[in-house]
């Protein structure tokens, strides 16, 4: 039940409502829980509400660990 769907804000209409694009499908979403969101921001949407801004930099940062593994494995395979 705690599904969160990522989408991008394409317009902010009125009264804390935004139009959000979910990979091509557009829906109206409430910004009541995230009033600072702006057009262009990515956000996580749950039961019709944006619940958090998704941080693109963090998204890249999160899997830094994986990149390190990948580099290590590339190095070891090029050594081999």
């Amino acid at each position, binding site marked *: *039940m*705690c599904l969160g769907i990522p989408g991008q804000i394409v317009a902010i209409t009125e009264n804390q409502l935004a139009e959000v694009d979910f990979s091509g499908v557009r829906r109206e979403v409430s910004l009541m829980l*995230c009033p600072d969101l702006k057009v262009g921001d990515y956000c996580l949407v749950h039961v*019709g509400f944006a619940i958090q801004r998704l941080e*693109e930099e963090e*998204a890249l940062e999160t899997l830094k660990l*994986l990149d390190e593994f990948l580099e290590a494995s590339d190095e070891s395979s090029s050594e081999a």
Partner: protein
Amino acid sequence: MNPLPRHDEGKLAPLLLEKIGELADLPMRLMEVCGTHTVAIFRSGIRSLLPQGVELISGPGCPVCVTPAGEIDRAITLARRDGVILATFGDLMRVPGSSSSLQQERASGADIRIVLSPLDALQMAQDHPERAVCFFAVGFETTSPAIAAAVQEAKRKGLANFYLLSSQRIIPPAIRALLSGGRVKIDGFILPGHVSVIIGRAPYLLISEEFGLPGVITGFEPLDILEGIYMLLRQREEGRTSIEIQYSRAVKEEGNQHALAILNAVFTPVDARWRGLGTIPKSGLVLREGFSALDAAQAFDLPYEEVEDPPGCLCGEVLQGIHRPPDCALFGTRCTPEDPIGPCMVSSEGSCAAYYKYGRGDEGK
């Protein structure tokens, strides 16, 4: 947005599994608390890929599953009242009460409507001023701020025909109850990503500080889950027990303070009954005094009556990770997704439904 930009699952998953394998020299039992994780783990086949020593067990994080039958009965009583429209999330429709379900009641003529958002129920109240629109709300901290915001809106708009029947629960007290009970051995927690979007990291510190166990707040993509498992094993390897955030693209240390402020303005914690876990102190949410006119349980005088679990049903033990679904004599025989007896088979996020649909997932080990 691709939630994991630049990353290639096909290449990275084997690498992570290799790293997990290197650290899995001793057995480690990890509980995924959240039902959304349970489904993601089964669907992606992660169980069958993990090394022998790493065991995943499902916990009490499916809101539908932990709602006691007595609370379903209360919603049914309400739906049968004249002039009532009962609005609820679709997941609840098939959950059995003591003698009926919301779906059966709807077939018998009760006006029960599925909504995708609490705001849909609010709109319904505006569209039907002559009816009492009662929103039967289940959910954890992920959902409660949205419900709170809808309640604030109802009050702001002066809607006199919108009511809330609250079956909302909060996660950290359930984790404490589970660990205090001592009936199940857990070596670490895969913590729920979207509950944590709201509450942040601090509420889980009880896991490391009171019980000396590690926890990692984890996202829902297969790579997220593998990385979360790796981070748990790494903590053990390094002799640490702390609460870490793997899902940092969505979870901030402090959570969503704005959403929490709305939640706390509308709701207050109370002792609540959980299926399987019994009554847990301060683990449920009810409307604060300023909003009590919207409380359906008060407005419609709906007392709570205890209902025994169906004979033979092991949902209570399954929810605590004490038993696995196939341990239940009803599993797959008398209890199936088409004709469920217990809530863990009803909800698509219940572990019985996941076992039924995807198999045990660890065959061949």
